[in-house]
Structure formats: structure tokens, C-alpha cells
């Protein structure tokens, strides 16, 4: 039944003739060069995507994000007027093994070295064009670290659809959006301390004690109960 099986990767998602952008790697490269030409001074990096090559993305620093976004929205042959999805990703600090060329004892050779990669928070925007039927162009904004500098530019002034989604990213990841009209928590309540979608989030153990077949949950609940009862 091979004939009946269809390949999803082959199908490049956009078959509209009008589409000026279909996400192919070369097109993303071209888009990047064009952006650099049209908006001089912006810093744009290409982020490739191994799994789905047609969904590579452009990393934009927060200072340039809004200009790039406006340009993408208003350029007549792109018209990315539909910001479909906004989300955060947490990349914690990690130690990575990398191969580096080093001169060891006078001989240059490849050695494995552990490098510390500082973590960052990332906000990803998926842009489509309703007018021309192209997409997705994926924009990424990154913060420089996860603790002190967590501010990126809000794209709500460009696309209204970011309003709630950026609030959600703020709520769950703790990314602050500059110039967001109404940056409040949206799913959790005001006064909630942490940002639960961060990878290092520790869930509270103050839930109701209930017997459960899983010992660790039970133990945690019992520990919590004991800690509550101890001072009294």
C-alpha cells in the first residue's frame, strides 16, 4: 500500500501561486539579505531547522524586532499580516561538549571540550500572509540571559494578535515585553510568584493530601503536611 502513503515533508504546505514565500531555505536566505539591505544596521541571524527544513527562522535582536516586523508586515510582496502564533521557549544554561581545534603540545588537533553556554529565553513568532497566502516566516527574539535582562520588544503594536499571547509568555516564562499596552498575568493570578513554564520551575507541594499509588507524590504530600503541622 505504498502508493497510498503520502509524504508530509514533500508537501511544502503552500501551493498557492500567489505565494511569494514558501519557506524554502534559499528563500529564507534571500529574505535575510533583503532585510539587511532594506533595513541597514539590523542584526539578523538565520536559525536552521533540521527536522523541518522549510521552517527555518530569523533571529532578531529586540532592538530591531519592531522595525523588522513592521517591514515584514508592510512590504507589498510579503504582506505578513497574520501573526498566528507567539510563544516562549526556555533554554537554560547548559554545558555542551564541542569539538574545537586546539594546539596541544605544538600539534593542532581536534579535542572535545566542555563549554558553558549561558541560557536565554526566546520568543517565537509565526507569521503568515492572509493577503498573499505565504508563510510561515518565523521570527525569534532572544534575551541575553534568563534572570536580569529578560526584556524583548513587544510586537503588539504591529500585530494585535500578540496582545494576549505575549501576556501569556510573560505569565508563564517571565519575559517582559517593552511597550506592551497591558502587560499583566493572564492565566495565573496576580501575585503568583514564579513562571511555571521555565525548565527549572519547582512545583509547589501545597496540594491536598490524597492517597495515591505513586510513592513520591505521596511522600511529597506527606512531607508538606508534616512541615505544615510541625510549627504548631
Amino acid at each position, binding site marked *: 500500500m505504498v502508493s497510498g502513503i503520502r509524504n508530509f515533508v514533500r508537501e511544502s504546505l503552500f501551493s498557492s501561486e500567489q505565494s511569494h514565500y514558501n519557506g524554502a531555505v534559499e528563500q529564507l536566505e534571500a529574505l535575510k539579505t533583503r532585510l539587511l539591505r532594506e533595513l541597514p544596521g539590523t542584526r539578523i541571524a538565520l536559525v536552521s531547522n533540521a*527536522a523541518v527544513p522549510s*521552517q527555518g527562522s530569523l533571529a532578531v535582536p529586540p532592538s530591531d524586532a519592531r522595525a523588522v516586523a513592521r517591514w515584514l508586515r508592510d512590504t507589498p510582496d510579503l504582506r505578513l499580516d*497574520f501573526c498566528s502564533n507567539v510563544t516562549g521557549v526556555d533554554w537554560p544554561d547548559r554545558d555542551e561538549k564541542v569539538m574545537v581545534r586546539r594546539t596541544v603540545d605544538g600539534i593542532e588537533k581536534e579535542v572535545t571540550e566542555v563549554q558553558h553556554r549561558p541560557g536565554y529565553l526566546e520568543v517565537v513568532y509565526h507569521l503568515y500572509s492572509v493577503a498573499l497566502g505565504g508563510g510561515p516566516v518565523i521570527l525569534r527574539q532572544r534575551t541575553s540571559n534568563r534572570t536580569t535582562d529578560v526584556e524583548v520588544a513587544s510586537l503588539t*503594536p504591529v500585530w494585535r494578535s500578540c496582545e494576549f499571547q505575549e501576556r501569556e509568555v510573560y505569565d508563564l516564562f517571565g519575559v517582559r515585553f517593552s511597550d506592551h499596552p497591558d502587560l499583566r498575568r493572564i492565566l495565573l493570578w496576580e501575585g503568583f510568584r514564579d513562571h*511555571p513554564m521555565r525548565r527549572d520551575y519547582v512545583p509547589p507541594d501545597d496540594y491536598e493530601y490524597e492517597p495515591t499509588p505513586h510513592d513520591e507524590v505521596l511522600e511529597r504530600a506527606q512531607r508538606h503536611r508534616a512541615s505544615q503541622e510541625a510549627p504548631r
Partner: protein
Amino acid sequence: MNPAAAPRTFEVRPSPDAADPVHDGSLLEVSLGPQHPSTHGVFRMDVVLDGETVVKLKPVFGYLHRNHEKIAENTSYLGSMPYTDRLDYFCSLTSNWAYALTVERLAGLQVPERAEYLRVITAELTRLQNHAAVCGFLLQDMGALGTPLMYAFRERERILDLFESLTGARMMCNYMRFGGCRCDTPPGWLEQARSVVTGFGAFLDEFEALLSSNEILLGRTQGIGILPRELAINAGISGPMARASGVAYDIRKVDRYGIYDQFEFRVPLGDHGDVFDRYMIRALEMRESLRILGAALQRIPAGPVIDPKAKLRGFRPKPGESYGRIESPKGELGFYLISDGGPNPWRYRIRPPSFINLTILEDLCLGRSVADAVVILGSVDIVLGEVDR
């Protein structure tokens, strides 16, 4: 003029000073919800009223928040499938499909043709029952005492019966798998589906006779909650709501995911973008779904329903990310997955259509009465399982 260019500003919480109109009693602040008969669950609208006119409305939600995304990041890819049922609990099969589609794209899996047909059939049946129920709920919010809702539920029951005999559950179907569907149709299921689809046309005629020309309905819905086309696009509104505003954007047509390119169907568009258009677009979409279903039930081929190479356990896609979206009955339902090569997704994100469609709720309701606000909310078609996640 781009409507989003000038960001709106409003205070988080007005301080109780004498100049505050809410404080001095000239305005009335009412919290519609979370326990309110017509907020479709545990939704809350913080409304400031001048008489009965809404002068400020802030949607408040999260009462059903369970951080589904976090749960999914700690479960295997397969383990998240039953959780997607619980997002939009009216349309579990489309949620299944969106998730399966994204994972298939991430892992480069293939879907047999029969499974594609089954996906189209179940998704369109889901659309039928969702739209019927939503039109019923809309009328319920308008005070029609449940009669249209009960008629819609009568038909919905038949579709849910189909789901039960196919997937084993009426609402939490958990039917799709990466690379196909979980099981094939039981004997006689396709005939039963055909008869349900045939009967549904008669139901639609009756439903429209009951309502579509009703003067009270026209008066209550026409010109209410007008969403301009530009704002709809800019605010990311999708699905029937966007199409009622004249946005010709149907992902079944744009992305042609699955095998939708093999079916003849039209995309109805509204010109006014008001509540009535949203209602009528849903009614018309049901008719188009019936066409798709008729063709799919006729043409469905024999064959396997799941890619034999697809693995159920120990599923580890290679590192990378993928964004997949489908046209769910509520709008664009997207899943965004980042894999780090492990058994659990590194990032699992849902783009919930009804959450994003709520962005413009305040814009639609300002200057209208409470009664309209309730009806407008009903026409947005939210399911709190999906909004709050």
C-alpha cells in the same frame, strides 16, 4: 490606518478615589462570571456599565488552567495525545489531528490514504457537531430557552454515537496516532455515517426554518459586534469568525493539509462581520462539510490505517522544531513542537484559536449592552478547556 498602531491603554485596577466614576456610583462594575449561566464555563468578564451600556470590558480567564504545555513537556509524545482531547472538548478529533500532523511533520512520518480519509471524515463530523452546538448555544444566550440547543444536541448525539463506535469514547476520542489512526472502522460504520450525514441536511433545513428568518433573531444579531476585516486579520482572528468578516482564509484551502485538495468545497464569506454573519457562516460551513463528507464516505479506499513503520513506544524524533496547524471548527489550531531528540518534547505549545479570538472581545462589546456582550461572547465560540489550557 492600522487599528493596532495606537495601542490601547487602561489601568490595571482603578484606585478608589473620589473622581473614579465606578467609585462614586455613576458607573457600575459587574463581574460577569466565572459563575454565570452564559460564560461557557469559567470565563469572567469584568464589565463596567453605564446603565446597561458596556464602557469597559476585560476578559479574565485561567480558572481552568492546568498548564497542559508543562505536563506535555514531561510526558512522552504519545502520552500527550489523550490530553489534546481535553483542550477543546467539543472537538477532540481535530485537536488530535493537529497534534498528530505536527509530530508527523517533525518526524517525517507518512500517513496511509485510508487514514487520511478517516481523518477528514472524523474532522468534518466534528465540525458539524461543533457548529450545530455553537449555533444552539448562541441562541441559548439570546434566551431561546434551549430549544435550538436541544435540536442541535439531538443531531450531535448521533455524531457522538458514531465517534463512540469508532473510537470508543464520545468526546475524549484519542483516536489519531502518529502515522495514521488507531483503529479501523467497525463493520457497518461507514453506512451508519452515511445515514447520519443524510439526516443532517434535513436537520439543517429545520434549524434554519426555526431561526434564520426570525425577526427577533435578526434584530438581536444584525449589526451587533461588528468586526472589521482589517482588525480581524491584524488580531489573528481565524476560523468562522474571521470568515464572517470577509477574510478569505481557510487553512484547509491554504495549506491543503491532509487530502483536502481532493475535495470540492467552498468557503463562505460574510460581508458584515456581525453576530448574524458568524451564525450564518457556521450554518453554511456545515453544508459544505456535508459535501466533503458525502464525497469522502463514497471514495474512502481500503488499506491500512496506520503507517506500519510508525512506532508507538520509544518514539524519539530527531532534534528540530515544527509548527503544524489545521482548520479546527474554532479556527486555526496550531501546535508548535521543539524536539531535542529525547522521548519528551522540549517545547510543546498550542495555538488555541478561541484564546486568540478573545483578543478583540472588548472592541466588539464597547458601547453595546450587557445582553449584546453575552451574545457576542457566544458568537466568538470559546471553549474554556482550550482558552485556559
